[in-house]
């Protein structure tokens, strides 16, 4: 489990993180989303022990992460900005990783190289950006980490490779209870992968929930009533986040349990009653009530 507790960090007077709390459950895939400059990478660098916060703590399994070699041996990190030793091929980098990660799996390393179709002897610097990212994934996943931290990992990967990478990750989560933290500003991708979501804005954690929990609590309903029907009294007992009339059909976003929504609205004898699934984007927009322009900017 990854726990971030009241983490605060400033850079030259600019408050990058402000008393941020975060919890990543063991064996889950946690999506960290936010706009550019929200603080995602800064949080990740604290979690990976690169930065030390001005205040607050970052722990994994109850141990402080900062300068903790044992924790880092169990952690794999794919940063946004990649770096490899100059002139090294994937094979040489693998040898180096093998020497410093006790859980290194050479069979996995070799099979992944083959699966991804990379040349282990070619200099990584001569790879394309996407191939370099693949190389980084191969190296990181071959360390068999208990914690996998990914900072905007999917940029630059084609859809096939993307799928392959996610397959490895999900398999590891399922088989080894690997804990994954992924940062992204692409909600559509996160929606299909993550178990829980945290959204950061201006260095603060705005929302942190399990995705299922979120979905079970908020619903999009399309209803139509006879023209003379007054439904205000019925809606009063529900937490309506958004109400919009489109012709004779009312579009309602309601935060209540599903059964409760159905009971209340059916009592009003609607002419049309449809309960539709919300996308992650819509959930967040309506959860925040549209008040936060930053969140609105998340929409793609």
């Amino acid at each position, binding site marked *: 489990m990854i726990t971030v507790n009241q983490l605060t960090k400033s850079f030259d007077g600019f408050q990058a993180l402000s008393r941020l709390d975060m919890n990543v459950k063991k064996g889950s895939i946690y999506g960290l989303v936010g706009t550019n400059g929200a603080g995602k990478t800064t949080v990740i660098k604290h979690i990976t022990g*690169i930065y030390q916060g001005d205040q607050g703590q970052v722990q994994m399994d109850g141990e402080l992460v900062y300068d903790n070699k044992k924790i880092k041996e169990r952690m794999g990190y794919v940063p946004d900005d990649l*770096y490899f030793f100059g002139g090294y091929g994937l094979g040489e980098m693998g040898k180096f990783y093998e020497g410093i990660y006790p859980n290194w799996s050479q069979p996995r390393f070799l099979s992944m190289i083959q699966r991804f179709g990379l040349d282990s002897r070619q200099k990584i610097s001569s790879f394309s950006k996407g191939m370099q990212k693949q190389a980084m994934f191969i190296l990181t996943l071959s360390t068999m980490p208990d914690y996998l931290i990914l900072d905007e990992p999917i940029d630059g990967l084609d859809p096939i490779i993307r799928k392959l990478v996610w397959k490895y990750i999900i398999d590891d989560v399922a088989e080894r209870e690997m804990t994954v933290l992924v940062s992204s500003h692409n909600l559509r991708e996160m929606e299909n992968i993550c178990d829980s979501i945290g959204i950061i804005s201006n260095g603060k954690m705005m929302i942190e929930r399990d995705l299922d929990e979120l979905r079970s609590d908020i619903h999009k309903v399309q209803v139509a009533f006879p023209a003379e029907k007054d439904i205000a009294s019925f809606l009063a007992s529900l937490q309506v986040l958004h109400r919009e009339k489109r012709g004779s059909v009312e579009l309602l976003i309601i935060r209540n349990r599903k059964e409760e929504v159905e009971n209340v609205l059916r009592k009003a004898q609607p002419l049309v009653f449809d309960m539709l699934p919300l996308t992650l984007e819509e959930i967040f927009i309506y959860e925040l009530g549209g008040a936060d322009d930053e969140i609105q900017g998340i929409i793609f």
Partner: protein
Amino acid sequence: MKSRESYFSFSGALIRENLKRFWAISVLSFIGYFLSGVLPILFSLNRYQDPNYGMGYMVRSMLNNQYFPHGVLHLVVPIVASVILYRYMHSSGSSTMIHGLPFTRSQLFNSNLLSGLILVWLPLLVTAGLLLLLARPMFLYEGSTEDIFTKVLVFQWIWKSLVVTLSVYLVAVLAGVVSGNGVMHMFLGFWFNGLLPGLYAVCVAYFGKFLYGFDGAGQLMEIATGMMPYLKALQSNEPFSSGLMSYYLIGMVALLVVSSYAYRQRAWEKAGDSLVFQGVKIMICYLIAFFGMSLMAFYFDTIRWSGASFLDGHAMFYVGLLVGILVFLYIGRMVVLKSPRVFNKGSLKHLAIYTLIALTFVVSVDMDFTGFEKRVPNPQKVEGVSLPDLGRMERTGRYEDLFFQPFETENETHGLVFQEPENVEAIAQFHRRVISERAAYENQGSSYQTHSLSLSYQRKNFWDLTRSYVVPYSMIRDSVQLKKVFESSEFKDRYSFQSLTVKEPRWIKAYNLFLYQTTMDQYSMKTIDGRVEIRELMEKLEQDYRERTWEQHLDTSAPYAQMEMAFYGLPNQTLSYPAYAYEASMDPTLKVMTLHVRKSDRHTISWLEERGYDENLSIKTEDVGCITVFHETGQPVSVDEIAASNMAVAKQWTKEYPDAYLSGKAQFCFENPEDIAILLEEYEMEPDNYQDYYFGVISFKKSSPYANRFYEHYGSFYQSMDAMRDTITVDYYIYFNNHSLPEIIRAEFQ
């Protein structure tokens, strides 16, 4: 369980990887050491031991760590190694990746440090191994017994090289830890390695400018170079003393601790900035301002000396100082902020702060807030005082300490330290007089002859108090205190010939000084090399030395003769007054003492006359056709004055040599043999008032034994004058001063 950080932990995997990645550093460095040091020896294997081959000088300078190519490598290789090993710190991507790997910060720092050290030291060790294999007896010159290519010397070389490169490397690593990018790292790597001595030298320049009596010259080199092993190795071929070695070790440990701590505190988000720590930014900015303002201040001061200044005193210096602060503070801000946009309130604030600091420093030195200038120790609390210039006023090698002391190491010279209370008191009294009369003789102007004088008081449990002054020669001449000290037994015993380290010279030569200085010495040179005669002559010289008074010591009239005494078996140190012909000798243990035989040295002169060595020691009147005496007043001579001169010779000169320096000066040609004899007897070696003195040129008859030789050397300038007289005129001046002017000159120039 909370993780424990070990400050001494390393990662073997990282060290191995670094050695694998950066092996080229060691290889290229070894090639440099090999090509410049080992290969020349290998190329001459069959004759490098031959002293006449000259390989010895290269080997000696190499093993003394004073060999230029190795000096460059000792500096460049460690700095470049540190830049390469710690390059990952200087970009966001690499620093993120590396610090995301399973290493603690200490492990990263220590492992990279050790890797770099191995890469730097390995080529040195291999080179040392090759030198050990090649070491054979080697001598600098025929007959020398000093083997300069021993295994011991090779070990000394490797020890010194390891210390030097380690210190350079550690300084460069610190520079890297505080830098944000590779360019700044490289720059600070070089700059930091010279920073301490540079700061010291600049501060000494301020002290030397403002503090009357400050003596930076003697100790400056010693202290400044001693601050860094690299500079010390270049300056001295001696092994590092135990005291110095302790200082270096403590310094290196401190560097290591500071660097390690700074690395752990370093904020990785600052990778790419010029400097990472705010405090270091301010420090570098202010250092740039300090060096820049000092440069401008001293430059403006030199303008004052060139006469282009409209301000007096230190005003130009302060103008330059303020200009320098303004310019270089902003330059410093641009460097540390990596931006030209520094003209803002923040910079103004720093300008104000720095100006305050700088002016406080300079003004406090200028106004002598510490009372430096007036400080004269209580003679009763002083263990001794040295006054090395007392003997040097003769301006010969007679009183060089090298000849009079038992020596411990080659580079140590111990001068006489006066300990008798009367002498210490007398010197202190003279010192007080120098301070109290400063204003009077500084107003005298620069025309009068001066002499430098330094003194050093040894105090118990305190550093020596050393002062250096330039005082009028008249003050020295008239000083009762200095007379007392010179004529004391403490001084005379020290420099007696009975105190010589090497008791007897191999030979003694005597000659006329004028002929010697005009390269005609062979015409008067006498050599005494019989053992008995040498002993007798030494006794006579000793007698005259014991009787010599302070006035005779300072007598600037031409000596009766100059002598040289050759001593073998002395340490190879440079003399202040070398006999030039012999210092080029291949035997470095040969040292030649020069001394004057004064006209008052009756015992010596009698001995020389009795033995017939006096022939040609004096210039014979009958060899001289004329002595032309000129009156120098220091005033420029106008063209009208030249034209109006009623001296036939001057008119002749201006016709043929319109730019002749001597044209237009009042002059008279003394041709009467009696007059010539008086002038030859009474001339002096130098003027004492540069604005009013007389000087003469001797025109030898062409029949004299050395006239033609003079002509080859000097004749062309005086051609027309000599044509009128059938003489050869030597362009070497003899002097007559007002305080002892011969009557015949006074009469002619009234």
